[in-house]
Every structure is written in C-alpha cells, then in structure tokens.
C-alpha cells in the first residue's frame, strides 16, 4: 500500500473515531437538510422545493466540511503538537497535506451523496438535466474552499479560535449566499455583503445549472471569483502554514 493511501486511511480512521467532529462536520449539513425540507414545502420557481434544497445544502456542506472542518482539524492538530511530531517522521509534507485534502474531499463526497439519497428517498429528488455542471460546481467549490481552509488554518492562532472563527464565518455566509433559502428579498446591504462572499458564487453556479439548465462555463465570473478565493487561500497557506504550536 502506498504511503499516500496509508495516510488517507489513517485520516479516515481518526476522523470517524472523533465522534464530535464527525457529527459536526459530516452530519450537521445532512440534518439541516432534513430539517429544512420538513419545515418548508411547496414549490420554488415552478419546481418542487427539494430541487432547491438538495443542491443548496450541499453547497453549505462544501463550506462546512472542506473549509470549516478542515481548518479546525488542522489547527487542533497543530496546537496539540501532532503535526510537529509527524514532521520528524519520513512522511513527506506534501503526502501529509495531500492526504488531508483527499480525506476531507472523501467526507464531503459521502455527505453530498447522503443528502442526494435522502432527497431521492423522501422527496423523489432527481438530478437536473444539466447534472454534469452541478457535479463540476461541487468539485470546483470543494477544492476552492479547501484551499481557503488551509489558508485559514495558517492564520488562526489557537484551537479555541478555530471553532469560533469557523462558526462566525460559515453559518452567516451560508445564510447570506442563499444556501438556506432565496435571498432576493434581503435588504440591499446584505446582498452587497453577499456579493463579496465566495459561497454566493458557488450557489449561483449550482442554481444556474438547476433552474436555467446553464452549463458551468456560461458562468465565467462566478468560476473566476471562486478560483480567486481558492488560490488566495492556498497562497496564504503556502507562505504562512506552520507545523508547530503557536500557543502553549
């Protein structure tokens, strides 16, 4: 078994064993989907509401899991000295970071599949005609938000700070970007803020695919904004990421 596969397996074991993190990171978006689809019903833009909720809650999962979950996990491990300890072993840094990314994407994929399956079983949800763009959007979003996750981990100084920062960022961002429901009736200043947030553009790509049958390449601005955020996060990580505890 290659070293990379070994490390992904290790990361998976560690992730699912940590009950709290598994519940928060994996289950929370799934539960939120169940909650929202139970309390709201009816149609949106002439389609069943599940057509809105399934992809939207998956975009929330992108922010929650590949950004928030990743950043918190890295900071906690760094502050506990786990990263420092691993740094003395022959495991190359690139293998470690690549496996971390891969393991996070795996958790996100399972989460997305869970939401789609529940949508299918409970509400007879089906893929839209433009399903390849939907999946491409999720993949692009997951990668870009993971880049931001690495960047955030490099900036956050303490383990307590990590969950605070992530909680303050992710939920309001999902709310403002339309991840939990349409925002067109929001006051203008909230929509202005939303225009600055990367999740808004992921939601845009996804909804264009569902409601307008528009392929992802017809949303070049949204794609570029997402990429810019992802690259910015990765650059910060490249320059600032540390393996040793910042505070002790």
């Amino acid at each position, binding site marked *: *078994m290659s*070293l990379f596969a*070994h*490390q992904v397996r*290790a990361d998976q*074991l*560690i992730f699912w*064993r*940590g*009950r709290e993190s598994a519940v928060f990171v994996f289950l929370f978006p799934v539960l939120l989907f169940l909650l929202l689809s139970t309390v709201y019903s009816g149609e949106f833009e002439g389609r069943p509401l599940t057509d809105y909720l399934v992809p939207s809650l998956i975009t929330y999962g992108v922010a929650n899991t590949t950004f928030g979950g990743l950043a918190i996990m890295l900071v906690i491990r760094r502050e*506990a*000295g*786990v990263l*420092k*300890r*691993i*740094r*003395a*072993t*022959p*495991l*190359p840094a690139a293998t470690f970071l690549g496996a971390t990314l891969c393991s996070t994407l795996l958790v996100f994929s399972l989460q997305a599949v869970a939401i789609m399956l529940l949508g299918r079983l409970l509400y007879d949800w089906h893929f839209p005609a433009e399903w390849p763009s939907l999946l491409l959007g999720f993949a692009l979003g997951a990668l870009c938000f993971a880049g931001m996750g690495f960047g955030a981990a490099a900036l956050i100084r303490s383990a307590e700070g990590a969950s605070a920062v992530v909680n303050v960022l992710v939920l309001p961002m999902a709310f403002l970007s339309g991840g939990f429901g349409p925002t067109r009736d929001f006051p203008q200043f909230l929509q202005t803020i939303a225009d600055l947030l990367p999740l808004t553009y992921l939601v845009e790509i996804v909804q264009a695919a569902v409601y307008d049958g528009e392929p992802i390449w017809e949303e070049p601005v949204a794609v570029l904004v997402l990429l810019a955020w992802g690259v910015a996060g990765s650059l910060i990580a490249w320059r600032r990421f540390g393996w*040793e505890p910042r505070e*002790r």
Partner: protein
Amino acid sequence: MAAVDVRGLRKSYGGQEAVRGITFALAEGEVFCLLGPNGAGKTTTIEILEGYRTRDAGDVSVLGLDPQRRDRALRERIGVVLQHSESWANVTVTETLRIFAGYYRRPRDVDEVVALVGLDAKRDARVKTLSGGQKRRLDLALALVGDPDLIFLDEPTTGFDPQARRNAWELVRGLRALGKTILLTTHYLDEAQQLADRVAVLRDGVIVSEGTPSELMASSRTEIRYRENGAVKVIATDEPTRLLHELTSRAVAEGRELEELEVRRSSLEDVYLDLLDDTPE
C-alpha cells in the same frame, strides 16, 4: 565517524541568545546526556539536531547529514521524543503505532514495541484514556517504531512513576546494547548517572562542564558531619581518612562521643548544584 557532531552552535530568538557557541560530539553507540536548569537551551539544541530549527551559526552533522536540510533519509534513521507532544485522542495505542510504523521503510513490529514500553495492558485503549505517564510511554514507543539508529529523548521520563522510570532505564540500556546512539536531556541527576556514558552541563546556552559521570564526580568531596555542643559541624575534605582519624582520636582521648557522626560522599546532584552556583552569570 561521530553520530552527532556539533561545533560552535549558536541560536537566538529575537535578540535573545539561547545557545551561545556550544561544541560536543556523540560517538556511535554512545549515550550522551544534556543536563541543565530550565531555559538552559537543551530543547533548543536538540530541536536543531532533529531538524525543527535552523541555526544562526556553527556546524552540525547528524549521521553525516545536515539536519537543517531535512533529508527524508535522515528522518528514516532518527527517533524523536519531544518535550511536549500529543497524538490523536480517539485512536488506540496499537492503531497509533501502526499509523506511525507505516511512515518508515523498515519499521519494528508494533506488538514488540508495545511490550517494550510496557503498554500491553493498554494496547487497545484509546489514547485519551491513558494516564500522563502512559502517554509518555506511547511517545517513547513512537520514537522506537521506526527502528532508528539515533534517538533523541527530551525529558523522556518526566511524569513516570519510580517503577516506570526504572523500566525506561532498562529500555535505554537495551537500546544501547543494540548499538543505538542516544541523546537525552533530563532534570534527574540519578538518571544521567545511571544511563549516560557522558554528560554535558548546559547553563545559559553554554556548556559549563562535560565528561563521564565519574569524571564529574571526581570534583566531588567527602563530607564529615557531626554534632558538637548542639551545633552541626560539616567539614568537606579531600583527605577523609586522615581527618576522620584526627577527629576520632581527639574525641576518644577526651572521652567524648562524636554525636550523629556521618561520612558521605557528595552525590552528582551536589556536584551539579555546586557547578551551577560557582559559574558566574
């Protein structure tokens, strides 16, 4: 070739010099102990050798390589116990060891390592349920699982009960018998005396004394104590036989008893404390 060779090593943290030009070497198969009070620069030195920190000046060679370059080949051959570190709370002892074993080309058998550090009874316990000393034993196991040639132990027995400390000493002796080179730091003088082939005493970033434990002890003197007219008298001497003879013959001639008479050689600890006292700031 020396397993570790350090010459004129210097390191400062933002203007504050923590290591101020130290020189020492470890022969292959040697157990070398760094002693010194808090803040003396032990961890700084050891972490430079492990490749965590860059040096400001001096030459350092570890197994013939420069640790600053962080060669993977070097990391294959060293084992590390950090002064502080944790591992994943929710996986078990053997799972943690298996994960680490997977990082090395030729790891040791995990069960063997578990037995070596005396964690058999806890092999399937989650790391978060281990006691402080048991976690420290896991740290030690993680340092050994790659079957290293050179082992760095930064205060490895801190938090051990006396029995566990004895076991750790046995373990270190066993590793030495296998020809491993070991650099350890400790605050326990008896530990240095028990384990080390050579000791260096570090203070304020400078080595103030270096030698075998018995060489360090050579400066130790014999103390004669007794009580006279209610007051305790302490005489330190290099000629205990003659002095004792004088004292006792006088007392016998005067028909007195030397109350609470005690003759003792000062321990490494006394020598160490003297050393730290005598050295000017």
